């Protein structure tokens, strides 16, 4: 602690700060992000970027320093690099998860799917591959923070949901049909279906769905929710022109009619 690698941004709001402030209006204070990365420059640059966008950040070089930092201050989220000398990101995330529910966003230089899945299975909340788009990082951090503030009071979410033979694994991001075959989806379709299975038999308005999805998807979300629903129906309905699973409610929105069986 106190070395030159620790960079703490204050409350100053730079570019985009107003947006963050508006977003954080419902929160008691400015969110504090702990950045753990062995690369000094990345620590500095991510810290500066998040600082400019209305976050308070503390950056440390490794697991041991992160432990010290966590003792000294209240954090809302950890941005954790997977590849670090000493205790690596995965091991640290596992240790961290055992003692707290602090949201974790993993960063890695390896684009391999297994890393992502292992990271998410350990309990990381999201995952980004280097080189990442800083704006995407921002969007993901906000989404994770919002999910954690919303879900704080609720029971932990399930990992696998089943409905009329279909199964959806939200960690692996896999949708399987009743025969067990993998059905690839776009990110939007998957997120939409996730919202549906988490809220079965509830009418979800277009505005609500759009709002739930915006947290993750940055681009191309001017497109109506209807297109996404139509595409989803093409994949999960036996007759997309006469949907049985995802029904349209006049002037209301959409509803998932099936019974959901949740499993961890």
């Amino acid at each position, binding site marked *: 602690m106190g070395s030159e690698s620790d960079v703490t941004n204050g409350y100053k709001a730079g570019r985009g700060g107003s947006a963050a402030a508006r977003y954080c209006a419902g929160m008691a204070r400015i969110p504090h992000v702990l950045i753990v990365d062995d690369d000094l420059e990345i620590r500095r*640059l991510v810290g500066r970027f998040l600082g400019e966008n209305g976050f308070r950040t503390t950056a440390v070089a490794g697991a041991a320093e992160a432990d010290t930092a966590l003792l000294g201050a209240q954090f809302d989220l950890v941005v954790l690099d997977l590849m670090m000398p000493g205790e690596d990101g995965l091991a640290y995330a596992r240790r961290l998860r055992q003692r707290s529910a602090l949201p974790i966003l993993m960063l890695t230089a390896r684009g391999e799917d297994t890393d992502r899945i292992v990271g998410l299975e350990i309990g990381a909340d999201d995952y980004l591959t280097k080189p990442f788009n800083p704006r995407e990082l921002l969007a993901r951090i906000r989404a994770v923070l919002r999910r954690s503030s919303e879900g704080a009071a609720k029971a932990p979410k399930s990992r696998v949901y089943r409905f009329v033979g279909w199964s959806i694994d939200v960690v692996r991001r896999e949708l399987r049909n009743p025969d067990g075959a993998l059905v690839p989806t776009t990110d939007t379709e998957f997120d939409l279906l996730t919202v549906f299975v988490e809220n079965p038999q509830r009418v979800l308005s277009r505005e609500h769905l759009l709002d739930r999805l915006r947290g993750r998807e940055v681009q191309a979300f001017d497109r109506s929710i209807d297109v996404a629903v139509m595409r989803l129906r093409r994949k999960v309905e036996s007759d997309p022109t006469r949907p049985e699973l995802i029904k349209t409610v006049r002037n209301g929105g959409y509803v998932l009619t099936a019974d959901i069986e949740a499993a961890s």
Partner: protein
Amino acid sequence: MRPGWFDGIAARIALVAILGLVVAQLLSVAVALLLRPTEVRVFSVVWLAERSAGLARDTFARPAAERAGYLRSRPDGEHLALDWMASWTPSEEGGRRGRSGRLGRAIAERLPEGFQVTTEFRGGRMERGGFGGMPEGQVVRVPRDDASTGEVSFEGVLPGNFTIAIRGPDGSFLVLRAQRPTHTWAWALLAGWLVGITAAAALAAWWGARRVARPLEMLALGVARTGAGLTPSFAIAAVAPREVGTIAHALEQMHTRLRAFVDDRTRMLAAISHDLRTPLTRLRLRAEAIPDPEERAKAFTDIDEMERMITETLAFARADALETKPERFDLAALVQTLVDDRSDLGAALRYEGPASLVIEGRPGALKRALANLVDNALAYGVRAEVRLGRDMHSVTVVVSDEGPGIPESELAKVFAPFYRLEASRSRRTGGTGLGLAVARDIARAHGGDVVLANRAGKGLAATLTLPLPS
């Protein structure tokens, strides 16, 4: 060349064996025929006189029109050649002839008045009552009368070199000659023997050749697994010929060396690509600080391009996608996902095909292969279409664009890694020159392929084929 059963090594070995056997058989038959002793038929003078006189009486007792037919129907045909002719002239140098010969006299004695007998002997007359004119060591066949006791007297016999002409009362002639011995049954037996032994040998040769070729076939199948993306098998049967074992061993060593070589290169590529990601991340973050929005956007584009190159290079090195296990997945949903993702970004792209088509494969790898083909089509053609279809044996995904196409001579070359087209198609697209190579590698690892063809109208069609298990 048309493939057929004949192309197999077993068939060829068997063929060589059968060919050798047939040649050997034919040669021994030829030798046997050449060395075979000459056959001479010997006639008893008494038998010949009796038979000739009897035939002459019977023949001339019939009307002229029936005589030829009667002679043809005679069983004597086997020993004697019988002809009835209007006139007969003795041959010029025709040996000795005369009415006074012992044979001629013996016949004439047995005929009524009005008959005249002439005899001719080719190649000299035999000594009276003996075999003086015949070389030693020759087989003698003596015709027997059915009624005879089977005992043959060598007294009063003649070799079959005679011609007997009996002039009938009406002036026409009955001509008798010794029939050369025929061996129809013997030839048939010989032919049957040859065919039979060849057939039996062919079966044995085929069975044996199959046993010899089997280990080689197994090895070929095992090694061919590499092409289908599986670990090759170099196992051979314990009974395999030594050479097959040598080949298997050599192939295994070669495979191990190649594998190690590729693995080294892959590790190097992966390490470089991985190490590039950290400075690239810094660059990406630094670019956020560029005040001019236009310059900032351009910097992002450059960084994105570099990242894509890293990703594609890694994909080419097979460091990622092909390492996952094959599983059942919906190819139609995958293609639609690709199309929808790009349509959302404003691409003019259309999907045509079934809503669902489940196959077995590596969805991650195939998604990359198809994405490469689709992005290629969108980069070069204004508009593109992805068509998914299946038949009994395969699934095809055709990605067609409306771009300028590729010169026919370049169609095969563009699959080479880092190959770039000149002129019209080389406009900046940000590709690495690996997209097609990666796509084809992935398709081949699934036992399929990617081919390019210019479309009849305009543009290019890339066809990815995947075999279906039968």
